[in-house]
């Protein structure tokens, strides 16, 4: 866009049209409609892209008033006259910058040029198709709000604003992407957000050098403190209620035009285990489900590795009855346990991958292959032993409880399995220690990723592996917010 400087609008309509045509390289998608009023001889044209504008708006509120106008303009400044007295639109702007004009046309607005004026009117007329607001697939809630973000930034911002009706809610817009100039919006609460964190986010986003941004993940990868970790140090969600709650805790939300998923930062590891509807269910029940998810996390990464360690290295630690059962099941199976486990774990990942990619019509065939061929038939043919199938199946089901981190889980599971196949329990312990050291060393925008997980104070654990009632949440998460105490009444500082 740097070469636009040499273009300046002139008073001649024909020259202006020629100029814009030239900038777009005679793109035939750009529509040009010439007009001339039969009463007062105002002559001009409008530029727009047919598929991006709402044609009713262009016809009814731009062309019709301009053509039907019977009054005589008092001055020759037709642009001001048209914008103030003729065109029916709540959002219009008079501009002479070629950059703005081009930007407006390609973003679905209409540009009106009049004969004899070196200025144009930019009239908002965007009207492309947007899907309906639906419940996000990945974050289904049992109870509570069901709306999810869309691909339109404006609608997404509206959803947040509807949740937080406060003058302190701020939006900071930035354009990211050398070529796409995608609108990225940082959303926060003034007075709650920590300035250092906010400035850090804005600085990091400003320093992004990329051709195009099509999803918030692009931004997330650029601004992460830990670019090489298998864990995300930003929390991705598609639910406006979750984002609103995060913003109220002093966090920063980053919205990207064209992406329904929103990053909230700084994020904590425990957020992985928090489902949005935990807050909408009875807190005993919600706590139980949260504990289940955490236990599920431990089991899903450990189960195949522990099974292998016990069966292939430490047979003396198994209860005799269990040992005999496994022994009987393994009788006649040609492959070593480690191979069985690795192949089945990979097969499970293949099933997940195939399930997401396959067209819905093939789903039934997929489940038949998955259940019958890989399960029953493999056991009956004594290609794999039944306990292995059960172990991998149990680990797989637990993985599905945590859709947000299925990627890291699969990597950890295979990693621990390999360590365990080399060194038994000892190798497994190695892996778990390395995992803990890694997790505790992670930072998200300077905040420890495992913050408050090493403490037993009630106000620290109130919203971690259990959820205490809403009236007990007297403080915001530590370090994140400038205003630690929640609400004006708060507690007696008993943290």
């Amino acid at each position, binding site marked *: 866009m740097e070469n636009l400087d040499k273009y300046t609008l002139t008073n001649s309509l024909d020259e202006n049209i020629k100029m814009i045509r030239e900038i777009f390289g005679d793109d035939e998608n750009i529509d040009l409609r010439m007009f001339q009023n039969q009463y007062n001889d105002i002559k001009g044209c409008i530029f727009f892209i047919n598929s991006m504008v709402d044609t009713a708006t262009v016809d009814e509120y731009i062309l019709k008033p301009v053509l039907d106008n019977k009054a005589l303009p008092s001055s020759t400044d037709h642009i001001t006259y048209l914008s103030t007295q003729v065109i029916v639109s709540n959002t219009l702007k008079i501009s002479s910058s070629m950059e703005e004009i081009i930007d407006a046309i390609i973003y679905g607005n209409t540009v009106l040029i009049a004969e004899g004026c070196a200025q144009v009117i930019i009239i908002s007329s965007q009207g492309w198709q947007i899907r309906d607001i639906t419940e996000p697939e990945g974050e289904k809630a049992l109870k509570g709000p069901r709306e999810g973000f869309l691909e339109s930034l404006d609608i997404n911002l509206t959803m947040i604003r509807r949740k937080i009706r406060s003058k302190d809610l701020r939006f900071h817009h930035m354009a990211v992407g050398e070529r796409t100039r995608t609108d990225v919006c940082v959303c926060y609460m003034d007075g709650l957000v920590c300035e250092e964190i906010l400035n850090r986010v804005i600085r990091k986003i400003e320093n992004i050098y990329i051709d195009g941004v099509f999803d918030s993940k692009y931004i997330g990868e650029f601004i992460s403190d830990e670019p090489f970790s298998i864990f995300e140090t930003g929390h991705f969600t598609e639910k406006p209620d979750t984002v609103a709650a995060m913003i109220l805790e002093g966090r920063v939300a980053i919205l990207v035009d064209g992406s329904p998923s929103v990053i909230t930062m700084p994020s904590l590891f425990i957020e992985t285990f928090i489902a949005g509807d935990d807050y909408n269910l009875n807190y005993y029940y919600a706590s139980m489900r949260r504990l289940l998810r955490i236990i599920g996390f431990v089991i899903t990464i450990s189960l195949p590795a522990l099974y292998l360690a016990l*069966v*292939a*290295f430490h*047979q*003396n630690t198994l209860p*005799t009855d269990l*040992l*005999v*059962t*496994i*022994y*009987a*099941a*393994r*009788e*006649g*199976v040609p492959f*070593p*346990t*480690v191979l069985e486990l690795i192949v089945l774990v990979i097969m499970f990942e293949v099933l997940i991958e195939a399930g997401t990619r396959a067209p819905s019509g093939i789903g039934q065939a997929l489940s038949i292959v998955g259940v019958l061929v890989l399960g*029953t038939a493999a056991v*009956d*043919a*004594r290609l794999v032993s039944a306990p292995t199938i059960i172990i991998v199946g149990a680990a797989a089901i637990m993985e599905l409880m945590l859709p947000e981190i299925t990627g890291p889980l699969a990597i950890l599971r295979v990693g621990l399995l390999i360590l365990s*196949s080399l*060194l*038994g329990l*000892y190798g497994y312990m*190695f892996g778990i220690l390395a995992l803990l050291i890694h997790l505790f060393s992670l930072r998200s925008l300077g905040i420890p990723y495992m913050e408050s997980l090493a403490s037993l104070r009630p106000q620290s654990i109130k919203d971690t592996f259990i959820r205490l009632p809403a009236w007990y949440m007297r403080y915001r998460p530590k370090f994140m917010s400038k205003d630690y105490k929640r609400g004006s009444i708060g507690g007696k500082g008993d943290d």
Partner: protein
Amino acid sequence: MTKYLLISLVMIILCLLLTGCWSYREIDSLYIIAGIAIDKEPNSDIYNVTAEFVDAKNTAGGGAQQQTEQGLQSVLLETKGVSVFDAIRKMIKISAKRPYLAHATTIVISEEAAREGIVPFLDLVVTHEEPRLDVDVYVARGKLAGEILHTKSFSSDIRSFELSQIVNENKQLVRIPILKAYEIINQLATPKFSIVLPVVTSFINHGESTNILSGGAVFKTDKLVGFLEQEDIIPYLFIKDQIQSAVLNVETKEGNLNSTITLETLNNRTKIKPVYSDEGISFDIKIKTDVFFIESDTLTNFISPQGRKKLKELTERHLKKRIENHIRKTKEDLEFDIFGFGNIIRQRNPKLWKELEKDWDSIFMDANFNVKCDIRIKNSGHTLGPIKVAD
């Protein structure tokens, strides 16, 4: 960065080298030993070791129905060797799978072998990494140890597991002195402390011979010297304060009829106090037992207050007599302290013990024992009163 990598590499390598033994070995390359029986050939140093293996063979290529029919099978293998371990190692030459001792629950030692000392067998348990320290040790009486494993089992597929389940799952009810290998080892290290191990012997069930746990084998140091019959076990356990749930059959006379009342003990607490006097040492044995009433074959109401009082006296007299008889019998038959009275003196009065230790057995023979029983009848295990029979 290279320095950091180098340090981590060195640390990882060190950690790998510092491990104990580890190796990947498939579960189906092992042959699980459930228990071993040790016999000694008369007049030689050769041991006959019978091992019971758990065979869990599945029908290959079988469908789901066939799998449910799978059961465990006991497979026996007998080898000879100059030591127990030698004999077990010989089994490797016979079996395609390596005999695996870590799940052995039972060691049966024949009477002859036990008379020569059990330390060599226990040594295997302690020093070899596979066998567990909590294996149960039994003495076979009246037959060879190998025969015990050969006898058809009654309730379980595997003879050895059956034996250990009898003692471990009904611990309170079997009324057998039970010692795990590590307890035996600890007690062997205590001076003048003898051990009593459970005895396995035959029992004829519908014409078929099976095994029964009955009585105890008494060891002086590590050598078998004699046996306690089953009726001696209860007074023995009372003195050792190891009684948990015993059945007391109190005999009473009603008119001319002999009748029996059955009581079950609930709790017991035995306190033994040595009394030193000029005449020598005597022991006060105070037994406090809670019992409940199980059944009687008389029509007398023992639940009424008077009945209870009478029953209490009867029971106290019965128990006292049994314990006194048992001590007397021990003095006559075995002629040494099997109860560990000496240990009580050693704990309470170590100086005195040093003087007495040398000829403790003769002091024990002269010692007096005052048995005092205190029976408390807690309830009648009945939900109703005794059955009334109308004339």
